[in-house]
């Protein structure tokens, strides 16, 4: 018997015009989408707007959801499309103060300084990667997308997704290491 509180069951209800479950879906998935946008755009305020925009589209285009399909993969697909729209009108490497003030995973604003410095360097290295590799790493390691989900998003095989993630990680390490020394 399908779980009535599964993402897919909730989204099916939304699709049929009961919008209340969208709130629970937002609770579950907005942090992941926020991280995805924050670490790809490196803009806090913009990332918040983009998360809202994804869920606006979920409500507006709810009829396009295919019952039973993975809601997470569907949301990530909408997020990628929204991000592509954003890049179409802006320079992804345009710097901002948000780059310097990105919040830490630590609940305190500054956190442990050494860890904070490592986070800052890592984030800067991520920012120096080509946008496509950055997006792939954020999807796989920060948004938590599986290889299968990445393969579906990029319309590639799972093995190709594995290789692309490995190579993006190698590129990140190459950029990060000189700054670690």
């Amino acid at each position, binding site marked *: 018997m399908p779980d009535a509180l599964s993402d897919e069951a909730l989204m099916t209800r939304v699709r049929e*015009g009961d*919008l*209340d479950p*969208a*709130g629970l879906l*937002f*609770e579950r998935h*907005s*942090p992941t989408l*926020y*991280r995805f946008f*924050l*670490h790809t755009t490196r803009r*806090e*305020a913009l990332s*918040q*707007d983009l*998360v*809202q*925009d994804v*869920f*606006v*589209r979920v*409500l*507006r285009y709810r009829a396009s959801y295919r019952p039973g399909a993975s809601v997470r993969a569907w949301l990530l697909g909408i997020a990628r499309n929204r991000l592509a729209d954003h890049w179409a009108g802006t320079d992804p490497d345009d710097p*901002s*103060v948000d780059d*310097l*003030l*990105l*919040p*830490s*995973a630590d*609940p*305190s*604003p*500054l*956190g442990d*300084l050494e*860890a904070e*410095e*490592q*986070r800052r360097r*890592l*984030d800067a290295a*991520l920012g120096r990667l080509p946008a496509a590799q950055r997006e792939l*790493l*954020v999807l796989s*390691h*920060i948004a938590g997308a599986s290889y299968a989900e990445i393969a579906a998003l990029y319309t590639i095989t799972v*093995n190709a997704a*594995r*290789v692309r*993630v*490995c190579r993006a*990680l*190698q590129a*990140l*390490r190459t950029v*990060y290491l000189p700054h670690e020394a």
Partner: protein
Amino acid sequence: MTCSAAEPYLLDDEADLPPDVRAHFDECADCRRLRQDLRETQAMLRDHLATPAPETLRPAFAAHLEEAKRDLARDRPPASDRGAVRSIGRRVRWAAAFAVVFILGAMSMVWLQPRDGAEEPTVLAQLESDSPSERLAGVMAASMETEEAPERSLVDALLITLLTDPSVNVRVAALDALSAYGDRERVRLGVLRALAADSEPLVQMAALRFVEAHQPPEASQALGALLSQPDLEPLVRSQAEILTVSI
């Protein structure tokens, strides 16, 4: 098995490896080293970039969901994408402003009011100049800003100057100019970051003046970080210790 055939499995856990891939990793020192390097990088990524989502996300969406439900009830076609996104942007800003006002009672609604920013392009251009004296002039011009709520772009430019400018004098001037906006969370965060990370005593003293004036609740950790520096100027140390006790 070749290295390229094993490449897709470089990030997999040991237990998940197919036997032939595991055998290859056992034999191939290059792959083993690469696998270890990548898994270290992978762990760092997960540990350091797991950023929490801001609290303002939820109320902004709740407002929009209610609007969508009303639209549905009226069987009315929703507004255009562009209009809806602008509306959401407004809600996020208002939600953030209300949250801070009600929780901290510190941020002024004046920030959200429109203003005349006619002089800003000149100031911003000065702040981005290659010449330290020109940047200093830009900071001074920014500090002469008489509006209570300057555009965020100006405050952000001052923060970038404080955190990245190579000139000590320019950083100190930027910090003094930012003191006028100590009620803004991002300004407090930027100054505390400068306090914790800047090694120049002049900047440290200016940041301590800011802390004394604004008493930011997040200051204790930055003060602790400052005091842990072994070569701290005695005057800076003394002032930081006084503030640590008093805050």
